[in-house]
């Protein structure tokens, strides 16, 4: 028999209490693991944003168009390195439920501004010379089983052609990879020129302008200069860094981060109270036994260690099972086609696992410290008299 055996026996002496406490902790870490992964997936676009990239959108909101003439005007502003433009196509493949996020872009400048899109030279050449050509992210290509040379119909739930059809026939010129494996590649790029010439709304409008600056330190002055230039025009602009833009986009859905943090914090606080009370009660019921251990010669420090370890083991037991189930749920959710489209980076990261284990240890320490301290300070005579 050793300390571990004694801890195990004390933990399992009241199986109902152990079960209820473990389930409470399990739920807390299930929530933390799953919602934390969800939060990270939502925020991954923000984290992976380039430092020197700015996004210019219509000041009213980003769904409102801007004139294409802005491209050259912005190019002329000091500190601007490169300018591209993009439109939201709103594509789907065969059926509306097969969402295929598609942007109509100025191909050459877009590939320059987004240097983190990796496309081999042959594919690039093919795409630039074929107006009906598209390039597809490797994630999207793998989801649909597409390869280079495939002809695919891409439909828009916003735009239509002169002939009334809302489906464009495209040829896959290339499949691109991300420079950073975590960058989302679940989208398609098509030629703006082809899109603009074939859609019946016309208008030479663009959706937004991604630009790069000569240096990230110039971001603010360049953004101010752009917005100043178009102030009081019919299409005022709002320029922000890519990370700010992505964050603002996410906040259209609500402050997800705050909601998730709130839910998890409320869960943890409740569990802290429940498990803390239970641990205190558990130790209080064993006052005489603790006194006997001390009488036998167990030092106060050792008694403290035994009680605190019980609490730590309890937190780890419930927490690790909860985290495992959360991992299982995250994996399951990431296989769902719709969620896959919305949150391509839905994974349980190493950060979440490490954070969870740290929180488990903290939970165990906080809930176990006071009972362990009381046990350490327990007066043998008082405790035996109470018996």
């Amino acid at each position, binding site marked *: 028999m050793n*300390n571990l055996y004694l801890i195990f*026996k004390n933990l399992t002496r009241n199986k109902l209490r152990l079960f209820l406490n473990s389930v409470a902790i399990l739920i807390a870490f299930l929530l933390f693991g799953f919602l934390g992964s969800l939060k990270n997936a939502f925020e991954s676009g923000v984290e992976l944003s380039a430092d020197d990239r700015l996004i210019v959108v219509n000041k009213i909101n980003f769904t409102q168009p801007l004139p294409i003439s802005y491209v050259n005007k912005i190019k002329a502003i000091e500190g601007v390195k490169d300018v591209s433009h993009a439109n939201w196509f709103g594509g789907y493949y065969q059926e509306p439920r097969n969402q295929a996020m598609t942007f109509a872009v100025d191909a050459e400048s877009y590939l320059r501004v987004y240097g983190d899109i990796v496309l081999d030279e042959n594919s690039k050449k093919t795409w630039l010379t074929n107006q009906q050509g598209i390039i597809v992210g490797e994630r999207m290509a793998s989801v649909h089983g597409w390869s280079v040379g495939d002809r695919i119909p891409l439909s828009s739930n916003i735009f239509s052609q002169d002939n009334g059809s809302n489906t464009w026939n495209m040829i896959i010129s290339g499949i691109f990879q991300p420079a950073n494996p975590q960058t989302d590649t679940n989208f398609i790029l098509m030629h703006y020129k082809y899109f603009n010439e074939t859609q019946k709304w016309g208008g030479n409008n663009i959706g937004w302008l991604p630009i790069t600056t000569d240096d990230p330190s110039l971001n603010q002055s360049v953004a101010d200069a752009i917005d100043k230039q178009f102030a009081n025009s019919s299409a005022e602009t709002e320029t922000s860094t890519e990370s700010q833009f992505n964050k603002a986009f996410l906040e259209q859905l609500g402050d997800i981060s705050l909601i998730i943090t709130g839910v998890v914090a409320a869960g943890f606080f409740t569990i802290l109270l429940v498990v803390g009370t239970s641990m205190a009660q558990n130790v209080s019921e064993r006052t005489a*036994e603790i006194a006997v251990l001390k009488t036998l*010669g167990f030092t106060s420090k050792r008694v403290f260690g035994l009680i605190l370890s019980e609490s730590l083991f309890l937190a780890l037991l419930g927490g690790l099972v909860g985290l495992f189930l959360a991992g299982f749920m995250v994996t399951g959710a990431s296989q769902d086609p719709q969620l896959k489209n919305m949150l391509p980076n839905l994974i349980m990261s190493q950060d979440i696992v490490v954070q969870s284990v740290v929180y488990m240890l903290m939970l165990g320490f906080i809930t176990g410290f006071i009972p362990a301290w009381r046990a350490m300070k327990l007066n043998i005579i008082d405790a*035996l008299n109470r018996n």
Partner: protein
Amino acid sequence: MSDELLFELKKVSKKFTRGKETISIFEDLNLAIKKGDFVSIMGPSGSGKTTLLNMLGGVDKPTSGSILFEDHPIENLSESELAKWRAAHVGFIFQFYNLMPMLNAEKNVELPLMLKKLSSAQRKKSVATALKLVGLGERAKHLPKELSGGQQQRVAIARAIVSDPDLLFCDEPTGDLDRATATEILEMLQLLNKDFGKTIVMVTHDPEAAKFASTCLHLDKGIFERQDIKGERATITETVENES
């Protein structure tokens, strides 16, 4: 029987404070216990016999005076040093057995050995010997709730002797048992005293139980009132300064 002094109490006083009132349990108590003695301490409730036992066992400290164990004072030892001293020299037997309910007899007996540096095989052997000595070799795997009161007290005795301590302190060891079982337990204590040379100090209310000891001390109002010395094992050297 040895003439070697094991315990000596010198002018030991114990006072408690309850609110503004200070209660004196005993004052300037002197007592000497030799190795191999079997001393029973009798007295009415509140006479201080359990307090005395607790002080001898190093779980309580005197307000003043000195307690010498093999000529070394123990009253100034720190809590941690006293815990180590108890683990090395003392075995305790309680009225209500105080076994760990989640551990079987074998594991309960093994508890004091967790404080010793012994191999697993040595521990098993010691536990088996102790359980066999108290006649519970076949009940090793039973939980306390599966044992009778007498059997639980035997497990407690096995736990007290498993680490081969010099001293056994028994606080009303038969207080919760019927007469026949109590006699068995007392005979066992007598055996441990006579055949294994354990020094035993036993607190009891029961005059029949006290008869099993070689020396019986009556404690009342903080002083030893009377000393009954039985036969040739009457080795206790007791000095009563306040004897009435």
